[in-house]
């Protein structure tokens, strides 16, 4: 089975990790913008869930529309969304699956005790039965240790 690949730039990688650390212990969320399977920018969005932001995120319809507009303005497309799992592994939950949209890339970053760790990407299968893990391809100058960027 061929898995889908999402390439992210170092700036995207860092932005997602920092966003997850900033909002810890709450979940962060935002849109991935780019083209042809390569995310080159993110749009950080407010987490508007009313179910408790430690365990849920929600992008309200007006922010979704904003993300689509920003994607067009940046000359790209909306490729998907990212969110963080505070103190939980970077694996999609049943809740994620229940709320997933097709073709979107879903990046999950695990933030353990305030520090961003594993980052994974997932795609909804056509029959909605499950997520398939994709390959996250980092740009050549990307790094997996976010700490230097915190004060940097």
């Amino acid at each position, binding site marked *: 089975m061929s898995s889908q690949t999402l390439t992210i730039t170092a700036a995207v990688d860092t932005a997602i990790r920092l966003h997850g650390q900033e909002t810890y212990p709450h979940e962060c*969320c935002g849109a991935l913008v780019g083209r042809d399977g390569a995310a080159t920018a993110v749009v950080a969005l407010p987490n508007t869930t009313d*179910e408790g932001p430690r365990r849920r*995120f929600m992008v309200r319809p007006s922010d979704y529309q904003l993300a689509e507009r920003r*994607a067009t303005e940046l000359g790209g497309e909306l490729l998907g969304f990212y969110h963080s799992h505070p103190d939980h592994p970077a694996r*999609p939950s049943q809740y994620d699956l229940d709320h997933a949209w097709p073709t*979107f890339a879903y990046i999950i970053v695990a933030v353990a005790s305030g520090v961003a760790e594993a980052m994974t990407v997932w795609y909804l299968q056509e029959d909605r*039965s499950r997520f398939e893990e994709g390959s996250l391809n980092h740009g050549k100058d990307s790094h997996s240790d976010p700490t230097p960027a915190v004060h940097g």
Partner: protein
Amino acid sequence: MAKILIPTPLRPYTDKQDAVDASGATVGELLADLTKKHAGLKAHLYNEQGKLRSFVNIYVNDEDIRYLEKEATPVKADDTVSIIPSVAGGVETATAVSPKPRSGEGGLPELTNEEIKRYSRHLIMPEVGVEGQKKLKASKVLCIGAGGLGSPAAMYLAAAGVGTLGIVDFDTVDFSNLQRQILHGTPDVGRSKLSSAKDRLNAINPNVKIETYETALTSENALELFAPYDVILDGTDNFPTRYLVNDACVLLGKPNAYGSIFRFEGQASVFATKDGPCYRCLYPEPPPPGLVPSCAEGGVLGVLPGIIGVIQATETIKLIIGVGEPLVGRFMIYDALKMKFRELKLRKDPDCPVCGTHPTVTTLIDYEQFCGVMPAAPEPAAVNSATEITSVELKQRMDRGDALKIVDVREPNEYQINRIPGSELIPLGDIPKRYAELNKNDEIVVHCKMGGRSAKAADFLRSVGFTKVLNLKGGILDWVEKVDPSQPKY
């Protein structure tokens, strides 16, 4: 004809078009036409029951149809209809129970061929199906108590294929349990309820993982015990534990499938869901201690927990597979004598101390104290000879021929089971109007089943001028055990 704007993730299903024309007079008709033209959209817009998925927003111009007439909202030719995704996700919680995937990549566990055969009557129902059965397999349910309610609930949940069933109990099986606690059989008397339950549940369904916790549920261990579970099933028989289960469920955001039973009447509800009320919204304060008798004191019809426990199991299964209307915001009362179900509406109380908008209870408290129950005092080394007498002393004094008036303050039906020779029956409730039948100069020994009710009778008699009143310590049960084992215990 109206224009429907298609969001990015759905464009692969509309030949990459970001807008599609469709015909219809209402939103519902328009969407039906759209999904007829582009069939691939259907699964992403509608759920298995044919309803719009909760995270699919439909706007007519700038208005969300939820605030118009939903799918019956009329659409004119120059209106623009937009499909706008709500993007949502998060880690697992059990507000709407979403069992954790236990295997596979982000999906639910697969069913084995044996399981497919076992659950075939579930699988052929569209409301359960393979998906629902997998959710059951992935789910974890914690039963508080392996007694009257826990027995039928755990047995049906095991049979239904709940993946992990936890049970908290620290009791041993007694003969008096067997009339209703169908997890346990006659050969189990004297065994721990947990080991008896585990054997029975494994026999029903060896696929179910049984986790046992041989401990009393306390404020110290409740949150940790509940944490791994999706639904908590409250089968407790006392107020401190009931409030503890409720508060822990609210604090953790886990639904509480609640049931209680007394004599011929049972109650059930689902508390502590996200938008629903909790037990404290219904009963902010516990009743004064002793006002509401327990089953041990008041009795219970043996089949009653079967009905209520199975309602709790039904609600648990519905929460897990996400079908039907849960018993949230509704309090069901069952009367076995009249064979009637009644339903009370319950509302979430915004001033509720634990689930309200400004909660004052944010951690678990001392529930024994909250309910006014004194912790069991350590056994006094010696009997207080001024107010109490032991069964052995009573027998010695009776044998000596001492003039003692023995007053049994139990109910007439208890008096028929066993009695102390020569005793007179005056039920506790009758004492205030019948105490004049007693002579204040007599030495009076009062007794009940275990010593609680007779202590109240003794206090009352002293308050009206009786000076020589002794309470039989341990009640008639102690008498039967130490003096007259030929009589039955109950």
